[in-house]
């Protein structure tokens, strides 16, 4: 697997070429319909027939909300006037009295009811509900549908992004591994990856987990680092993928860290949770619930941190782009473009930082669970010393 520098160069150039297209303000834009941002509102409008956004502000709000959610269609942009969407549909897999498999294009962006295996399904706000032949949805007072939902195992936009990331990681790292067979110096993309891998090993895993135990966890730490990093960087491209800003995905990642921590913990760790040494008995009992809660808050914080950081970044970037369309004048256009560019560069930093922080804290938690506690020996030493002092 060789990634020629020309290919990378071309990709980067292409990304930079597309970037202004998405960001530059069409300051006096009222008639032109060549813009991804404005047009994508049409997609949102088509989805929500019930409460159609009236003005530009709520349109932008709806568009941002739509972007933050997962979707069954991969839409790059859509035409506001004709209501056409440019993109492709992804397969829908439902588990509901057997597996049902059809293309999301059959929903026609929420406008049609799909019949599969004697059941009718409707798409409403990117969620699939069971319905009847007329497609009636009942709503509660908060305007949420009360219809039953089938178990949705579809290849959605996020799932596709994760599969692509998995493929990219597989190709990159098998390439890196192969290049070591030729010689000690990696070639191609491996030159970028090797320092990152060494960084995770030398700066993250070894100081936090310990020299003799880190090897077992390197696989997980490297995987989670590059997985989050690549998905974060994907989120910054104009593809409109928001995977690490999805709380379900960060929850899964945090749960994996949690289970690894708990299952690799040694007896000292459990002892410190259920029977804290060297404190009064009453305190020991009081500390048990606190310590148990402490094990749960760690993955919870991991989950919230990644989700909130990435979502906040996406919201800020898209709101700034949206402001151009709210103000529509020659001053706001270029200045918000500049601001968007600035924030986007900050977001690249955040993408690396959050991947690093997730890995760092995971290794820290694992390290807490597996480390040998030496202080008990210290206490013994103290008790030996104390009589001498007295």
């Amino acid at each position, binding site marked *: 697997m060789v990634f020629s520098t020309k290919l990378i160069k071309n990709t980067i150039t292409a990304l930079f070429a597309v970037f202004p297209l998405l960001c530059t303000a069409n300051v006096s834009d009222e008639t032109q319909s060549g813009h991804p941002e404005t047009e994508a509102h049409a997609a949102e409008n088509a989805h929500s027939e019930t409460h159609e956004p009236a003005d530009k502000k709520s349109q932008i709000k709806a568009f941002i909300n739509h972007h933050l959610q997962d979707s069954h269609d991969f839409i790059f942009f859509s035409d506001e006037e004709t209501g056409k969407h440019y993109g492709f549909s992804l397969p829908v897999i439902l588990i509901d009295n057997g597996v049902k498999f059809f293309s999301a294009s059959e929903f026609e962006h929420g406008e049609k009811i799909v019949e599969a295996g004697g059941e009718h399904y409707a798409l409403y706000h990117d969620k699939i509900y069971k319905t009847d032949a007329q497609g009636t949805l009942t709503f509660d007072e908060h305007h949420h549908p009360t219809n039953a939902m089938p178990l949705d195992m579809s290849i959605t936009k996020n799932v596709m992004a994760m599969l692509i990331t998995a493929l990219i990681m597989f190709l990159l790292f098998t390439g890196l591994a192969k290049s070591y067979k030729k010689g000690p110096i990696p070639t191609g993309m491996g030159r970028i990856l090797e320092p990152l891998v060494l960084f995770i090993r030398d*700066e993250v895993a070894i100081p936090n987990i310990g020299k003799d135990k880190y090897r077992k966890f390197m696989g997980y730490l490297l995987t989670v680092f590059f997985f989050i990093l690549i998905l974060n960087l994907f989120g910054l491209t104009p593809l409109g993928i928001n995977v690490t800003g999805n709380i379900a995905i960060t929850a899964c990642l945090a749960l994996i860290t949690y289970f690894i921590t708990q299952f690799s913990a040694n007896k000292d760790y459990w002892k410190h949770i259920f029977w804290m040494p060297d404190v009064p008995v009453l305190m020991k009992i009081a500390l048990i619930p606190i310590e148990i809660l402490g094990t749960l808050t760690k993955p*919870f*914080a*991991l989950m*919230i*941190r990644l989700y*909130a*950081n990435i979502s906040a970044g996406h919201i800020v970037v898209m709101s700034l782009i949206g402001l151009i369309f709210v103000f529509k004048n020659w001053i706001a256009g270029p200045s918000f473009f500049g601001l968007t560019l600035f924030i986007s560069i900050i977001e690249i930093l955040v993408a690396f*930082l959050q991947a*690093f*922080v997730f890995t*760092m*804290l995971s290794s*820290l938690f694992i390290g807490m669970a597996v480390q040998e506690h030496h202080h008990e020996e210290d206490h013994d030493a103290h008790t030996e010393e104390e009589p001498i002092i007295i």
Partner: protein
Amino acid sequence: MEIPGIIGAGLVVIGAGLGLGKIGGSAMDAIARQPEAAGKIQTAMIIIAALLEGVAFAALFAA
């Protein structure tokens, strides 16, 4: 009277800002005093900042 969540969010941001400022300021002081330990100080700073951020975001969601 119900206090709107947005006020809570504002308070959280003030607190988080103060906290991050303190961390950053102290780290700068430490690096200025011991420039050779900059790497270690930065790592510690990022960990603390991340932990603070986690709390701040949790509070923001509650607000």
